[in-house]
C-alpha cells in the first residue's frame, strides 16, 4: 500500500511546546498568567511514534478535548461527560467478539492492546453538529485487530456496541437513544489503514469522557460513527443497525461520511466552527471526507453519496 500522503500542508507542522501553549498565547492578553500556569500541568511528552498516517494539524488542548464531548450516556450537555464519566469502571474491561469470525470469545483489554503497535495519529474530528477539533489519538489500526479475530469469508460488516451500565451511565436511564449505543462499518471501511482503534490521546490513556478504555476513530466520517467504550465487536453479513440512524434515519445515514455538499436536513455541512479558538474563531470550509478524499474516495466509487449519506 502507498505511504499515506496528507492533504494537510507541511506548514502545518508545529513544535509540541507551541501547540501545548497555543491557547495560552491566544488568551494571553485576556487571561494572562493564570492560563499559562494551568497548561504546564498537561502531560506533554508522548512516547509513541508519530504514524505516517498522522496529519500535521495543530491539536486542540487536552482541556478542550476532554471538556467538550458528546457522550449521551453521561448526559446531553457538552460538559456533562467531563463531570459524570469519572464514575465509570474501566478495569477490568473485556470485549466480546462474535458473529462471522474464526476466533470468537471474550478478549481482555490488555490482550487487545497487544494486537497492534500503538502510535500517535493527529486527526481532524468533525462533528455532525457543525464543529470540529483536532485530536492527537494514540491507537493502532482496527485492521490489525480484525485480522487477529479472522473474519469468515461471508463477513461484510463490522458491528460495535458501547457498554450498557445504567448504574454508572446515568444517561442510559433516559430513552434519548435506544441503548446500548451501536455503530457499524462496511468491512472494507473497517480495514482501511486510517481507521483506528484508539486507547489514548495526548500520549496518555483515554479520558473516560472520550470513550475509555477503547474506542473507534474513523476520521473521514462524522464523529458519532466513532463509537466509544466498546464492549462488543461482531462481524455480520448484513448491514448492522446503528444508533443515530435508528433514532432518525432521515437525518443520520449509515455511512455519514463528512461531505460539505450533503447538508443535514436541519443545518448546513458546508462549513464548520473550529473549537477552542475563542470568541472570534473563524469558520472554515468543510472538506469532502474531512480532508481524506484521496485516501478513501475509492471506497465509494460509483456510489451516489447523496443517496448513501
Amino acid at each position, binding site marked *: 500500500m502507498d505511504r499515506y500522503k496528507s492533504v494537510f500542508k507541511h506548514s502545518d507542522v508545529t513544535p509540541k511546546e507551541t501547540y501545548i501553549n497555543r491557547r495560552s498565547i491566544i488568551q494571553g492578553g485576556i487571561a494572562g498568567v493564570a492560563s499559562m500556569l494551568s497548561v504546564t500541568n498537561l502531560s506533554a511528552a508522548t512516547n509513541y511514534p508519530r504514524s505516517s498516517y498522522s496529519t500535521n494539524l495543530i491539536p486542540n488542548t487536552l482541556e478542550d478535548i476532554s471538556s467538550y464531548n458528546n457522550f449521551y450516556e453521561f448526559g446531553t450537555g457538552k460538559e456533562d461527560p467531563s463531570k459524570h464519566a469519572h464514575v465509570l469502571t474501566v478495569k477490568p474491561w473485556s470485549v466480546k467478539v462474535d458473529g462471522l469470525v474464526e476466533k470468537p470469545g471474550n478478549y481482555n483489554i490488555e490482550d487487545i492492546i497487544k494486537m497492534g503497535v500503538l502510535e500517535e495519529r493527529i486527526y481532524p474530528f468533525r462533528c455532525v453538529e457543525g464543529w470540529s477539533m483536532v485530536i492527537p489519538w494514540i491507537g493502532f489500526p482496527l485492521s490489525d485487530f480484525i485480522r487477529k479475530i479472522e473474519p469468515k469469508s461471508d463477513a461484510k460488516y463490522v458491528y460495535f456496541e458501547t457498554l450498557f451500565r445504567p448504574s454508572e451511565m446515568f444517561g442510559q436511564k433516559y430513552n434519548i437513544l435506544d441503548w446500548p449505543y451501536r455503530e457499524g462499518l462496511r468491512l472494507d471501511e473497517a480495514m482501511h489503514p486510517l481507521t483506528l482503534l484508539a486507547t489514548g490521546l495526548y500520549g496518555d490513556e483515554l479520558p473516560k469522557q472520550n470513550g475509555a478504555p477503547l474506542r473507534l476513530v474513523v476520521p473521514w466520517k462524522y464523529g458519532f460513527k466513532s463509537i466509544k467504550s466498546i464492549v462488543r465487536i461482531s462481524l455480520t453479513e448484513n448491514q448492522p443497525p446503528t444508533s443515530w440512524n435508528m433514532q432518525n434515519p432521515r437525518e443520520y445515514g449509515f455511512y455519514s461520511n463528512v461531505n460539505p455538499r450533503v447538508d443535514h436536513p436541519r*443545518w448546513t455541512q458546508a462549513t464548520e466552527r473550529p473549537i477552542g479558538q475563542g470568541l472570534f474563531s473563524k469558520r472554515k470550509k468543510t472538506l469532502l471526507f474531512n480532508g481524506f478524499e484521496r485516501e478513501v474516495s475509492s471506497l465509494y466509487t460509483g456510489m451516489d453519496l447523496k443517496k448513501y449519506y
Partner: protein
Amino acid sequence: MSKVILSLDLVRKTPVWVVYTCGAMPAAFLIYQANANLLGPDPVKVIEHELGLYSLKFLISAMIITPMYKHLRINLIKFRRALGLLCFWYATMHVLTYVVLDQQLYWNAIAKDLVKRPYIMFGFASFLLLLILAASSNNWSIRRLGASGWKKLHLLVYPSALIASLHFIMLVKSWPLEPLIYFAIILGLLFYKAVNTIRQKFRIL
C-alpha cells in the same frame, strides 16, 4: 400572612428601573465570562444559547403576569413592559450573536439558512413578531391603537412564544427535556388564554 403582604407591598413599591437593571445582569455576566475565558472551548455557542434562553425566560415571565394577577391576586402589571422589552433585547443580542460571531457576517450562508432551515425561519419569525411587540410597547402606541386594538395586536405574543419554543426544539438532536419543558409551559399559557377568551365570549364562568 402579614409577612407575605409586607413583601408584596415591597414588590409593588419597587421602581421599574430595578427590573431593567437586574435584567441586564445576565448579559453583563456573560460578557464578563467571555472576557475571563470562563465559557469553555466553544464560547460562541454558549453565548448564543444563553441569550436565547434568557429571551425565552423573560418572555414567559412577561406572559405569566396576567394569570398571576387573576388567580393569585399578585399585581406585577407595572413590570410587564420591562420584562417584554428585556425579552426583546435578549432576542436581539441572540440574533446579533448568530449573525456576527456564529455566521461571521457570511450573508450568503445566512440567506440560505433563512430559506432552507425551518429552525432558523422559526427563530426569525418569532423575532419579527417580538420586534412588532417591542416597537408598540410604549404609551404613545397604546393611545394610537386604542386599548382594545393594542390588546389585540399584543396577542402576537402567543404565536411568537410558540414559534420560539419550537425553534429551540428543532435545533437539538433527539428529544432532550429542557426545550420540551419550555414548550409545555408556553402551551399551558396558550391553553389558559384560549379557555379564558372562550369563557369571556360566552359569558360562562
